[in-house]
């Protein structure tokens, strides 16, 4: 994550929360209905009871460690005047939300520092949860508002006022969540952070003192109505933010007034944070989108709920290339439509950045097609977790089915291109069928080669002299342990490394290699785990994996060992020879 390091309560806590959120993430969709608004509250309540609601940190463009965190994104849609919106979330339920936008890197990062303490919020709709005086959480305020169902027609702006977080009096009028918009904030280095504000007209007493936001940001006045509306369109999500779009309009943001908390200015802004634009495109993209926003569309960003598992594939650069997805945007919902359906609370229009998570795209597509089937027009749309934002191109059918299909086809072609790069000698092959044929042949040949090598190795192992590869391993062990501190060298580990030092056939090396394995297995594990974390494959307990497949280092040894149950008897314990 760029920016500040987040303080954590502890790994255990995080894990617990992540688990909780994961467990409940399925219920998200239920919240988004008119009737489900209460469920949101319940959800929140339960979440808050878990000592905090996970609000995750956003990070664009790269998979961060927060994959398994729940990210709650609240979008507040402005009206047809377009604009504004949302925000974000704090990682910890409480306070000290820090958000920073790095324009140069096109990264939008929201961090929250853990303040400690429980997260609570008041809402008359729900059972009372006492607010901590110190740490009103941004999310808490959000939740609070979410439970409200009234819908106001006045556009609202949610603003984060970092300075106010500190000592926010309970009488402050609004809960502010805001997000700075990108286009205008080329000079702004951080997103204004909202402060929780009690909404007096609605009777929602929300906040207690907000936390401090160290960054000084322009903050936008908040209107309770906006908050209401925002609540309407909020959704919960989990996973990383690669699928999130924020919409904002620069002009609206620019004049923002650094008003005090008490100010309630009606301003709505749509902040658009295009994931794509974060990932390398320039701001002009946003300019475009901002102008599009001008016609009264608001889009809500939803991130996929199962983002926990997602993004592994994002390491594949080719697959993640946003260039192919650049032009694909599908309008999901317009703000006027939202206005027309005040009663349809909880429905949200969602748009996802076209930079899709590979893992989530499937779901997104399915959901997308499902939704498009349900909704003839764009009027009401349920927010499901992931959402593909597709725009109909000029001269093409705008049918929802065909749009979804087009997205799918593009995904498939993108992956075929990647496969083409992988398979040697397939650069000039055109056509899916021929390409598939080549891929199949290649996989078959690779598997045959593996079998041949296995047979050869088994013959070699049957040979008497054991010196060949165990000396290698000893040297490898030495290299690894030497390079233990620097993960960079560990990532450079490749099969070729074993080769140059493969020649020693001295016995002591063999013995040291073997004894190294026996006695320094812990260091091996550590080295390996260093490697593994460096190489990006997380073997931490937080990752999602099926329970019955243990992914620790014992796995491999068990595998091989299982085939040969006899104990190794010639493991020398000449550990004294081994010099690291």
């Amino acid at each position: 994550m760029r920016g500040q390091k987040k303080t954590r309560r502890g790994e255990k806590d995080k894990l617990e929360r992540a688990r909780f959120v994961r467990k409940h993430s399925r219920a998200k969709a239920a919240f988004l209905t008119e009737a489900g608004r209460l469920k949101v509250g319940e959800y929140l309540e339960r979440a808050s009871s878990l000592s905090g609601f996970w609000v995750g940190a956003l990070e664009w463009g790269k998979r961060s460690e927060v994959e398994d965190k729940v990210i709650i994104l609240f979008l507040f849609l402005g009206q047809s005047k377009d604009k504004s919106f949302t925000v974000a979330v704090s990682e910890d339920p409480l306070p000290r939300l820090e958000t920073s936008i790095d324009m140069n890197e096109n990264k939008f990062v929201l961090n929250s520092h853990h303040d400690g303490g429980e997260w609570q919020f008041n809402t008359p709709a729900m059972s009372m949860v006492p607010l901590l005086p110190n740490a009103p959480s941004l999310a808490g305020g959000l939740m609070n508002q979410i439970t409200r169902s009234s819908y106001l027609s006045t556009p609202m702006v949610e603003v984060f006022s970092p300075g106010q977080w500190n000592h926010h009096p309970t009488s402050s009028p609004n809960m502010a969540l805001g997000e700075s918009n990108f286009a205008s904030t080329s000079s702004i280095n951080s997103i204004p952070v909202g402060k929780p504000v009690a909404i007096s007209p609605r009777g929602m007493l929300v906040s207690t003192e907000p936390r401090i936001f160290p960054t000084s940001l322009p903050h936008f006045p908040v209107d309770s109505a906006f908050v209401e509306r925002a609540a309407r369109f909020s959704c919960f999500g989990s996973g990383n933010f690669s699928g999130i779009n924020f919409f904002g309009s620069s002009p609206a943001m620019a004049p923002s007034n650094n008003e005090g908390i008490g100010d309630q200015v009606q301003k709505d802004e749509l902040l658009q944070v295009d994931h794509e634009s974060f990932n390398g495109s320039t701001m002009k993209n946003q300019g475009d989108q901002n102008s599009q926003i001008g016609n009264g569309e608001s889009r809500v960003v939803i991130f996929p709920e199962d983002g926990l598992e997602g993004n592994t594939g994002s390491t594949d650069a080719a697959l993640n290339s946003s260039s192919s997805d650049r032009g694909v945007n599908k309008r999901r919902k317009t703000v006027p439509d939202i206005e027309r359906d005040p009663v349809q609370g909880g429905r949200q229009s969602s748009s996802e950045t076209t930079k899709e998570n590979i893992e989530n795209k499937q779901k997104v597509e399915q959901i997308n097609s499902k939704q498009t089937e349900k909704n003839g027009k764009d009027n009401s749309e349920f927010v499901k977790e992931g959402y593909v934002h597709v725009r109909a191109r000029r001269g093409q059918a705008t049918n929802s089915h065909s749009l979804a299909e087009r997205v799918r086809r593009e995904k498939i072609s993108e992956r075929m291109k990647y496969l083409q790069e992988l398979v040697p000698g397939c650069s000039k092959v055109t056509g899916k069928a021929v390409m598939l044929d080549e891929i199949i042949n290649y996989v078959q040949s690779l598997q045959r080669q593996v079998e041949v090598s296995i047979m050869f190795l088994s013959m070699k192992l049957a040979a008497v002299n054991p010196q060949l590869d165990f000396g290698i391993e000893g040297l490898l062990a030495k290299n690894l342990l030497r390079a233990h501190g620097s993960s960079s060298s560990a990532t450079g580990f490749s099969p070729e490394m074993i080769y140059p030092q493969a020649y020693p056939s001295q016995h002591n090396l063999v013995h040291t290699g073997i004894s190294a394995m026996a006695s320094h297995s812990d260091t091996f594990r550590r080295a390996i785990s260093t490697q593994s974390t460096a190489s990006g494959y997380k073997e931490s307990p937080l990752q999602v994996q099926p329970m019955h497949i243990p992914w620790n280092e014992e796995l491999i040894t068990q595998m091989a060992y299982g085939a040969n149950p006899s104990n190794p008897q010639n493991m020398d314990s000449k550990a004294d020879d081994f010099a690291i």
Partner: protein
Amino acid sequence: MVALRFLRALSLVRCSGPGARSPSYRARGIRRAAYACMAASAGPRRAWSRALLRKIRRRPGRGLRRPRAVIRRRRPVGGGDPLEVALRRLVPGGGCMEYCRLLEEAADYVKCLAMQVRLMQTIVDSASHVNSID
């Protein structure tokens, strides 16, 4: 990464080698080790690596299935395209995935498989080379 695991596994396989096992038994052990290392180094986030490990770990004759087994067969195959069917058979865990996912997993599988082949060939080369030096 793969190399280290594989070498460790190989050494374990080898340690019982002189115990006069049949070569096919040894070959099976090496095969298991090779695929297990490959899958383990790929990471648990890949569907094919999970499926591969599941296949390896499943011992013949194990009757008891765990009740909390992973959901299989979310999306049964349409089975229209023979190429697609063939690819599904080749890639471990390919029966349950959608087409897009299948392509993605196939790409990753090909990558790891190529690396594994290179590694094994290097080991073989070094083995034969070492032998020839003596």
